[in-house]
């Protein structure tokens, strides 16, 4: 019931997001058809405006947009890529971004969870310091720096991996690493914090005083509570990862939708900006729901009415 209500609430939220996005992109100076060379006649620009209904009042454009979306699930035509609709672009790019995002997500969890866990278990000793330092490094050094370094070392110098493009499994490795490292660092840090907090919780002290073995304590009881911050973080993180990354897609020339997230607003590709904003919002809302549901499974204290 609770989750059903949350889904219902998402609809007005999405309406507000779409309206705000709509107004904001139309308010931005410049138009999709501003170019270095102005057409030979002002009429040409008027034809363009008319072809995309930009000559109508903005409320009418918005209603037209909502109607298209509600009736046909149509995000409208792209104004930059005139042979493509926004649906088309998302359909081509999203699977690629989702694949890469999911790989980076698994990499981040696969590396971050154990790293944070063991760092906490060896608190104050060298594995803790080394792990924390590396995690900090992963968080602080941006992909913009890591990507060229990895390309330089593994692809250009050693020639183990391709420098760019999206063609075969080896092509996937460098982008996954670059994209996932930041999140792996975050996950490790959250996991370590969570473990340290959990180890001090009263129920752990109680369990310990009952004579429970240290390993069982760590894995069976502390872990479930300690992982909760990671779970909350995983929702927005996954939404971020699945919608692609501008920098990674640009450097590795990956045909995802991350590049459009940035370029569409620079290009004033109105429909594309709004479509992607909605897509991102839907993912974020959906994944946060999943997170809350996961809470009920992991922590017996959490109940939603």
């Amino acid at each position, binding site marked *: 019931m609770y989750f059903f209500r949350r889904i219902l609430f998402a609809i007005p939220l999405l309406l507000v997001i779409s309206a705000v996005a709509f107004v904001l992109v139309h308010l*931005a*100076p*410049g*138009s999709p*058809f*501003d*170019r*270095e*060379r*102005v*057409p*030979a*006649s*002002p*009429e*040409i620009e008027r*034809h*363009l405006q008319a072809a995309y209904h930009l000559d109508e009042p903005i409320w009418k454009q918005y209603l037209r947009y909502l109607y298209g979306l509600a009736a046909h699930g149509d995000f409208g035509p792209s104004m*930059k*890529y*005139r*042979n*493509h609709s926004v649906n088309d*672009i998302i359909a081509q*790019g999203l*699977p690629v971004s*989702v*694949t890469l995002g*999911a*790989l980076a*997500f*698994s*990499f981040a*969890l*696969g590396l971050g*969870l*154990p790293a944070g*866990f063991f760092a906490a278990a060896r608190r104050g000793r060298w594995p803790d310091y080394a792990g924390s330092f590396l995690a900090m490094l992963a968080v602080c050094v941006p992909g913009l720096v890591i990507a*060229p370094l990895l*390309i330089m070392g593994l*692809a*250009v110098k050693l020639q183990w991996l*391709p*420098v*760019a*493009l*999206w*063609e*075969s499994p080896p092509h996937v490795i460098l982008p996954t690493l670059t994209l996932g490292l930041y999140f792996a660092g975050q996950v490790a840090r959250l996991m370590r914090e969570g473990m340290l907090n959990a180890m001090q919780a009263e129920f752990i002290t109680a369990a310990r005083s009952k004579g429970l073995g240290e*390993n069982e304590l760590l*894995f069976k009881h502390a872990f479930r509570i300690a992982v909760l911050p990671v779970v909350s973080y995983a929702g927005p993180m996954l939404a971020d990862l699945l919608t692609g990354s501008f920098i990674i897609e*640009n*450097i590795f*020339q*990956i*045909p*995802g939708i991350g*590049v459009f997230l940035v370029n569409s607003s*620079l*290009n004033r590709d109105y429909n594309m900006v709004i479509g992607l904003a909605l897509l991102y919002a839907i993912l974020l809302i959906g994944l946060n729901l999943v997170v809350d549901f996961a809470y009920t499974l992991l922590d017996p204290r959490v109940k939603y009415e």
Partner: protein
Amino acid sequence: MLLSERARRLLFPARFFFLLAAGPGLGGCLRHDPPAEVTIINGAEPESLDPEIITGQPEMRIVEGLFEGLMRLDPETARAIPGLAERYELSPDGKVYTFHLRTNLVWSTGEPIRAEDVVYSWHRALNPDTASEYAGQLYYIKNGEEYNTGKLKDPALVGVRALDDYTVRVELNQPTAFFIDLCAFPTLYVVPRRTIEQYGDAWIKARPLPSSGPFELVDWRLNDKVRVKKNPRYWDAANTRAQLVDFLPITSPSTAFNLYEQGRADVVWDKNLVPAELLDVLMNRPDVHHFDYLGTSFIRFNVTRKPFDDPRVRRALGMAVDRQRLVDKIIRGGEHITTSLVPAGTANYNPVPGLAYNPEAARTLLAEAGFPGGKGFPRFEFLGTTAKLGEDVAVELQQMWRDNLGLNMTLHPLEWKVYLSSEAHLDYDVAGASWIGDYNDAQTFLGMFTSEDGNNQTGWKNPRYDALIHAAGEQADLVARAKIFEEAETLLVRDEAPIVPTYNYKGVNYFNTNRIQGIHPNLLDDHPLRAIHRVSPP
């Protein structure tokens, strides 16, 4: 025992997500096509492949392979040579062209190409519903502008008619020296009527897509690649050299360079794809080719704002620009400096030299205008883009005008679309700008500074200049026409100076001539696909 349990617990989420992603995802998303014969890194993702819609060079370079006009460009000189038309006649008054189509023309799907297809294609380019941004390229045709702007509703009144299956008669408003060049321009290419009528706006996605050019479209995946293969039904297929060509849409210079160095790509043909950090090294490599082409970088003044309404002020600023320093220090691609708008080498014309670097004379002129030593001159802004190169140029100009004239200029870098919009609405003092010729004629440069031209963007209106440009249009004799253009350019770059030209662009591309041939340096930086080929096996 414990270890395995520990491992299992910890690895569970990772394994779960990895399988989730790797299973269906990788299988569905990665596609490894058989390698192409030639792989070209082409710059930005094409906005469209519809000849009548496209406006940019990356698009035109692909579309030039897929469709053809009555004329086509020679790969070496980029001059117009017969394409779908095997010959043409021009009436004595220079206004009526009669084109004779080849009789063996067919679409790549086998249907014949007839004179009616030419008429249809040009009508479509002019049809307001097509919303072609380059429709102006057909305004030279009688009633072309009237039909495009909605003053005339009936396309039959436009001056292009099919006399029979193989003859097209074109009537122009004025003798137009470069009309033959325009017939090789994408907006005037011949497109497949049946497919367009069947699929509407999505026609370019029809497969097979009928093409009139040397190649046909195999695949177009966004931000991934455009793949074309040889069209065996093209009238000149015997001279199409490559079988399978890939275009990769890449905008990151280092990615482009790495792919080239690893041998994954054969040709990189855009100056913007030369990593700026490596420019000095690369310019000396034998596989990096640079050549002159028809593009000029210049400075615009907003003459509707004081003190730039005074030609003396504009000329003084122009004479205080040390172009050589700009090119040697910032641009660094071996560009030639210029004081004229029309680039050297433009057909049938000798550019007029404008205001050379002369700080002494500039100071005198500025004092005459009432600002001795820059005293009393208001602080002004330089409108530019946020691109690194543009900002570097602006900083250099700032210093030149301060050192030479004692002027205070602030930089005003704006995001691309905002920059364009500010320039078009005369919301600036001084701005950086450039122009690249659409065809090889002085008109493409000088025509834009007439009073009503949308690309003028200086607020400069000069009746005498307008009259000269108009007179040049009426003049069929090329020598007399050049004289009139010279007079106009003198007004533009020497006497009135609403703009100050700085340097001419260089075309830059890199490919190894031991592997790839058929790409020639020319003034339009145009490289027809049909001539490009690999010389040794990959």
